């Protein structure tokens, strides 16, 4: 049977497509939001052209991070030595799940980073004098919202490289159980990062917005942003715990 040796490659190629396909959706949307706000900002404040252009480019680069993670996972799935025949269904499930985890996991964080960068561009246009403080806050906020994408990357890499080969002589029930639990791990962390990523992006966006309106309250705004972002991160951490349990404790 050809299929009995080829299913690992089938899973790896499917995972590669899913990863960068899904991951590109909101990365594109997020970068587009930032560029749009940057253009509007330059229209309103042509004198702050340089600063706005710089903020826009740096913001877009930071918003691309999760998309780049998805690209890396795709490349690893295609060229990382997974055209193998050993490992059984465990390997196939792990490779498909790695693609799912990173693809779905990139959706929330890049949308959040896009919103945050967009608000920063608006804010710089409103108050070019405080442009550097706003850009610093934008970068911190985008880093916070990318944290959950990093969780997805970690789970994805663990699924690629630390799932053991399927031992010989297992019965069908056990094989099914472990394979499906690996897919469950990818879904848990992938879906689990959407909310925190988007939520923290909203916090960071509002903080950037307010920093342009009330630059004197900078330290208060940053404090509230950190506190709020930490609380919204908690559900991503629960998802990470469940994903680890599904990979290592089942």
């Amino acid at each position, binding site marked *: 049977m050809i299929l009995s040796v080829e299913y690992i490659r089938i899973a790896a190629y499917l995972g590669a497509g899913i990863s960068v396909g899904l991951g590109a959706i909101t990365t594109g949307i997020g970068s587009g939001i930032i560029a749009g706000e940057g253009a509007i900002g330059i229209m309103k404040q042509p004198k702050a052209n340089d600063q706005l252009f710089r903020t826009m480019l740096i913001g877009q680069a930071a918003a691309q991070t999760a998309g780049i993670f998805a690209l890396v996972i795709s490349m690893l799935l295609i060229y990382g030595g997974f055209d193998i025949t050993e490992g059984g269904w465990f390997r196939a499930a792990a490779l498909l799940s790695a693609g799912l985890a990173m693809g779905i996991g990139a959706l929330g964080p890049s949308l959040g980073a896009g919103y945050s960068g967009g608000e920063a561009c608006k804010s710089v246009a409103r108050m070019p004098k405080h442009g550097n403080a706003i850009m610093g806050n934008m970068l911190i906020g985008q880093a916070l919202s990318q944290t959950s994408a990093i969780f997805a990357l970690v789970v994805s890499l663990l699924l690629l490289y630390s799932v053991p080969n399927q031992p010989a002589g297992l019965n069908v029930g056990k094989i099914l159980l472990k394979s499906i639990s690996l897919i469950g791990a990818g879904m848990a962390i992938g879906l*689990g990062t959407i909310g925190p990523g988007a939520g923290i992006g909203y916090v960071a966006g509002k903080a950037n917005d307010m920093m342009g309106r009330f630059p004197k309250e900078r330290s208060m705004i940053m404090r509230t942003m950190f506190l*709020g*972002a930490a609380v919204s991160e908690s559900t991503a951490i629960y998802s990470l715990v*469940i994903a680890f349990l599904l990979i290592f404790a089942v």
Partner: protein
Amino acid sequence: MELTLAQGIVKAAALLGAGMCMGMGALGPGIGEGFVAGKACEGIARSPENASLITRTMLVGQAVSESTGIYSLVIALLLIFST
């Protein structure tokens, strides 16, 4: 542990369910808590003299919206360990 195919399917469904449960369950609280914190940033910037009141309200609101995330965590752990 010997498993029949039927037992394997049931347990596999429970584990996939655990993953989906925690994943989707984290969606709402994450977005909701982020929204609360964003509005709190706005409120504190507009009226910094009420910062402590606003922070308190933000934390209480986030705790309430966190509860569904914790329900999902509990159900996911139950599905993993007690089916």
